[in-house]
């Protein structure tokens, strides 16, 4: 079937999965465009790994279809899918050298040694592991093993590359450098990557699209900016980045927070206002702002690149406020001091409670 560049490369329709009485995936649709780097983000047990394994072919869905390039591959096993996977913990063959690991897929595909060696060598060069070619995986560091696992999958030129918690096993320093390397790799080879992670900063740093999952559903899908700036509900808001979530009541299109009235469309319900800690101003005298709440500074924490103020506001809720150091140095602010916390309507969102 011919495909245009507009059609999604990978399309999941109405996919469900249950393990015994445990529902892992609610009916779920997902489209991934060619060249996308999609992150499936969610807490453990949200179904993201199940979804990845369904795409890889290691699990078959109870209902629904998986299509790639318009072709239904639901019933096809992983050995016949044009999809390869980098496993959590890498899954390298411990008894094979780096070169044998990387060349294994091509060997199985029936490429003769002299045909596959150049491809293997090029891949080893690209992943900067050519000097390790004759070592065994047990002799490599975590980061080096990660490169071997990537090389082993990428040498197969997969239509879609799946990554299961690719950076989870690395220490913080290495994780950061591997993160930018993965991004560069994706840009260089122009492939389609799908990555599973529970780390929101990793998802934001890696992917150009994020699907946030909770309890077997995709709660929100969009660019990292979309999801950060316009979270669909309190779950997404709480999961992505730091946020303050203030419970409110909406009555006849108006929410009330202290003495502020905030217009909000929708039926009468329990809702919440979300505002990022960096978007809140603190001042000694009452400012003119869209939303302003009096409170008291309960704690001041030095966080390195910023200072975190913990403010208990009139409603009894606690706000986290991140401000630059300079503001702390002006002298008026201190623990126990009464303050006005204020922010603009544009920086806050009224969300459905989940």
């Amino acid at each position, binding site marked *: 079937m011919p495909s245009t560049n507009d059609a999604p490369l990978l399309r999941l329709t109405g996919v469900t999965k249950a393990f015994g009485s445990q529902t892992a995936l609610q009916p779920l649709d997902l489209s991934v465009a060619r060249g996308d780097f999609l992150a499936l983000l969610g807490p453990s047990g949200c179904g993201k790994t199940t979804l990845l394994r369904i795409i*890889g072919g*290691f699990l078959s869905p109870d209902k629904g279809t998986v299509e790639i390039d318009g072709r239904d591959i639901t019933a096809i*096993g*992983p*050995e*016949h899918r044009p*999809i*390869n*996977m980098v*496993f*959590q*913990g*890498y*899954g*390298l*063959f*411990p*008894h094979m050298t780096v070169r044998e690991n990387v060349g*294994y*897929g091509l060997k*199985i*595909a029936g490429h003769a040694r002299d045909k596959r060696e150049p491809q293997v060598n090029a891949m080893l060069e690209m992943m900067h592991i050519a000097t390790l070619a004759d070592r065994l995986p047990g002799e490599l560091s975590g980061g080096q093993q990660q490169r071997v696992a990537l090389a*082993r*999958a990428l040498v*197969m030129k997969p239509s879609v590359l799946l990554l299961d918690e690719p950076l989870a096993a690395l220490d913080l320093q290495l994780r950061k450098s591997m993160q930018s390397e993965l991004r560069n790799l994706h840009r260089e080879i122009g492939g389609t990557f799908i990555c599973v992670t529970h780390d929101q900063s990793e998802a934001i740093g890696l992917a150009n699209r994020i699907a946030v999952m909770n309890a077997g559903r995709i709660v929100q899908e969009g660019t990292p900016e979309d999801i950060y700036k316009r979270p669909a509900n309190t779950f997404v808001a709480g999961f992505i980045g730091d946020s303050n979530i203030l419970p409110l009541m909406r009555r006849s299109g108006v929410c009330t927070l202290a003495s502020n009235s905030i217009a909000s469309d929708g039926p009468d319900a329990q809702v919440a206002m979300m505002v990022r800690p960096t978007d809140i101003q603190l001042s000694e005298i009452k400012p003119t702002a869209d939303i302003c709440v009096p409170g008291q500074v309960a704690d001041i924490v030095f966080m390195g690149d910023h200072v975190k103020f913990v403010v208990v506001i009139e409603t009894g809720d606690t706000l986290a406020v991140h401000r630059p150091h300079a503001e702390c140095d002006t002298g008026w602010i201190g623990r126990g001091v009464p303050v006005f916390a204020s922010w603009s309507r544009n920086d806050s969102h009224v969300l459905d409670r989940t």
Partner: protein
Amino acid sequence: MRDARLRAIAAVMPSLLVWIGFFLAPLVYLFIVSFWRVRQYRLVTDATLDNYIAAGSEYQHAILFTVVLAGFVGLLTTVLAFALAYLIRFHAGRFGNALLLTVLTTLFGGYLVKIYAWKGLLGSDGIVNRALLETGLISQPITWLLYSPIAVVITLVSFLLPYAVLPINAALRGIADAPIEAARDLGARPVRILIDVILPQCERGVLTAFALAFFISAGDYVTPQLVGGPETFMIGNFIQSQYVNRMNAPIGSALAVVTMLATLAAVALVSFLYRRALRACST
């Protein structure tokens, strides 16, 4: 540093002494006696090779027969044990442990109990023959089932199977799921995964299982005596007879030494072939 080393030596000392006193020393004595002679039912110190010449000429056949039969038992036991352990590890799911426990409960039945059980099963009037006669599949009882090398093989395999399952089970449990799934992801079919990923990683377990079954079979003299019939003599029977009936410890010792070397060589050969075969199959 020195304290730690002293403590380590002290910790292994008791078992080391037991090993030296009850295994190494008798073995050395056995080796020395194999160069002695017997004169008028008494051991005489000597440095003769006559015992080895006798072992090489008169008992050549018995040694060869023993190595071949024990090798066959070892091979069959290892293959069956691997199949069972593979089933437990990869296909039995949560019934795996129950299955393993069932295999291990057969260890409660003693060695002799199993031999007599097989006598009852395989004899001319045994359960197997009676069942075949009743169903009309045969009109005369099959006589070669009992008192034959086949009976020895069946009995030894059934006795050794649970022992052989243990090291293979441990080795298979040590193999992570991810490399197996990765091989599948890279296009390998189950047989290829077995040859390329699973067997190389459980080499030690498989060879341990084989060595266990092979050594125990090669040294056995009770099973051939009870179910092997008048024609099936393994080298253990001859060694026993040299010690007990003929009071000729030197020839018995020489036979034991030769058998030991032959079996060690056989296990070394099998280890070598295992690696070679896997390498040959993988390319």
